[in-house]
């Protein structure tokens, strides 16, 4: 069975997107291999093109680069960063990040919608990082987003699916891949998100700060695959307390 993740016109076998911002670059190849990763984010502001510690020198050739607009404080800056990324050969994918708060790193949904609209018109495959709000997700879809990337918890917090109920609403209502972006701290949380129908998981801190990053990457991959399989299988009914009689309320009926 082919169960592909489609973003724009591109298909991916892997539903595990790797954030690269917190890694030791020497480890990144092993993390990609153990995690079966096909897409890796790239912060343009960190890409030391032609210089020391340039992430592009560490990525295998077959990896799709997802440049992000980190550092952008408004839509205009995000658009300019995306254009720069395209100019240096990073392709048409872009993860829009517009952040106006250096403390919590929460996305500015309003500016994100504006940037998404401008970039989609320029032919980018736009994947916006967002706070999970249904109205915003609808506006992003309308603006031309190829996926939406709601946060599970604040970036780097490893707190898991704090926004679970709201992400579920997006899964139910938005006809685009919903990719949980920030806050996933453990493979079990990634699995839980996938079970409820999320299309993919993006993860960085939880792996970059693990004692054995390659093994943790493998664990995430397995958890994501397990969660996806469970979603496709359709989980059975889960009882919340004691077992129930088969028809406790309607058993009195005779015909």
């Amino acid at each position: 069975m082919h169960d592909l993740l489609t973003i724009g016109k591109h298909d991916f076998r892997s539903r595990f997107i790797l954030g690269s911002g917190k890694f030791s670059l020497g480890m990144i190849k092993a993390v990609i291999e153990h995690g079966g990763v096909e897409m890796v984010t790239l912060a343009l502001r960190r890409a030391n093109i032609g210089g020391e510690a340039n992430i592009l020198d560490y990525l295998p050739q077959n990896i799709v680069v997802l440049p992000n607009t980190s550092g952008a404080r408004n839509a205009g800056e995000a658009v300019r960063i995306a254009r720069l990324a395209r100019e240096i050969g990073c392709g048409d994918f872009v993860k829009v990040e517009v952040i106006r708060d250096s403390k919590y790193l929460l996305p500015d949904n309003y500016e994100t919608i504006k940037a998404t609209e401008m970039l989609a018109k320029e032919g980018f495959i736009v994947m916006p990082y967002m706070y999970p709000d249904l109205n915003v997700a609808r506006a992003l879809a309308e603006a031309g987003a190829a996926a939406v990337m709601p946060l599970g918890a604040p970036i780097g917090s490893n707190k898991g699916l704090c926004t679970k109920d709201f992400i579920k609403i997006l899964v139910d209502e938005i006809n685009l891949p919903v990719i949980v972006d920030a806050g996933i701290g453990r493979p079990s949380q990634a699995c839980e998100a996938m079970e409820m129908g999320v299309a993919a998981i993006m993860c960085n801190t939880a792996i970059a700060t693990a004692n054995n990053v390659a093994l943790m990457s493998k664990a995430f991959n397995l958890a994501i695959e397990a969660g996806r399989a469970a979603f496709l299988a359709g989980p059975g009914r889960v009882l919340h307390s004691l077992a129930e009689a088969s028809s406790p309320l309607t058993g009195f009926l005779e015909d």
Partner: protein
Amino acid sequence: MTKKRLNHMEYLDWMELIETDIMDRVLRSAEAYLCRQYTGREVESALVKDHLSPGDFCSLLSPAAMPYLEDMAVKARLETRKKFGNCVHLFTPLYISNYCDNYCIYCGFNCRNKICRGILSLDEVEAELEAIAATGLKDILLLTGENRSISGIEYLGEAVKLAASYFPAVGIEVYPLNVAEYLFLNKCGADFVSVYQETYNPQRYAQVHRGGPKRSYPYRFHAQERALLGNMHGVAFGALLGLGDYHQDAFAAGLHAYFIQQKYPHSEISLSVPRLRPYINNRELFPHEVSEKQLLQVMLAYRLFMPYAGITISTRERATFRDHAVGMAATRISASVKVGVGGHKQKEKGDQQFCIADTRSVKDVHQMIVQKGLQPVYTDHVRV
């Protein structure tokens, strides 16, 4: 006739006033901070919290926290990893002039010191930048003494334009400016501003800043706010630890940064922890000498109070201390540092501001970071 000395809480005519209450709030809080009133119980309580209040920050800076230094270090390392991952940012300063009108009794550049003064011509600035860029660095900090006629705003603008043509990230550590001047330098290519208050205690400030524009305490205090109003991305804060009581100064510097971040949430905040180093007969002038342990306490308290803030570790500190500080609390480290005027390409044109304890090259510092299992980061800014 003797010229009347400026009241240290007043402004000179050309100094811009902005509407803000941050200085009053910081000074009120610093004055009320009695560091010896805290107990181990308050430190323990702060150490189990996810988000620390200014009150918790007080306890971590207090003498009561000293027995908990290891616990603070463990938690600070975790916070640093959560927020910054494995990344350690490399940069270097370039002094372009040491002419100075200020009489700051602790500073090598002060106007009464008979030192060799120098200013780099723009050709010399470019030669220095070229030499620094050849080391692989992408983040530079331009520094001057305070002399608006010799190293004026137009000169700074030209130097910043040159720097921006070689480096994606250009910071300035020059004399405090008005908003329009910060805007001008931002347009030239600077995005980061460092201004250190030296000591936050106004009386002590007046004692050690005896003349020159720097004597105006409030004008210097509000520099970061004017810089952000002038479209700068990030601002750095710090006290020269040892000038006054370090508990109070570190508390006030941290609170200053905290209030600025609250008011300007988009700004990138960073803290520096320069320490007044011992020299002959300075105990009488500066009786508040700060030990390495106390310096580390300040860095750890900063990290726990403001996990999001960058922390820079100075070359005033010995290599071993710096190596341990990165990854634990510090996120920015300078390399291949010269503190005379120029010196990266040509012979230094002016004398040094202070002595450095860590003279390692970019390559050596890079290697040290890698050996610690961390990642040297050369650029973290894109100018758009």
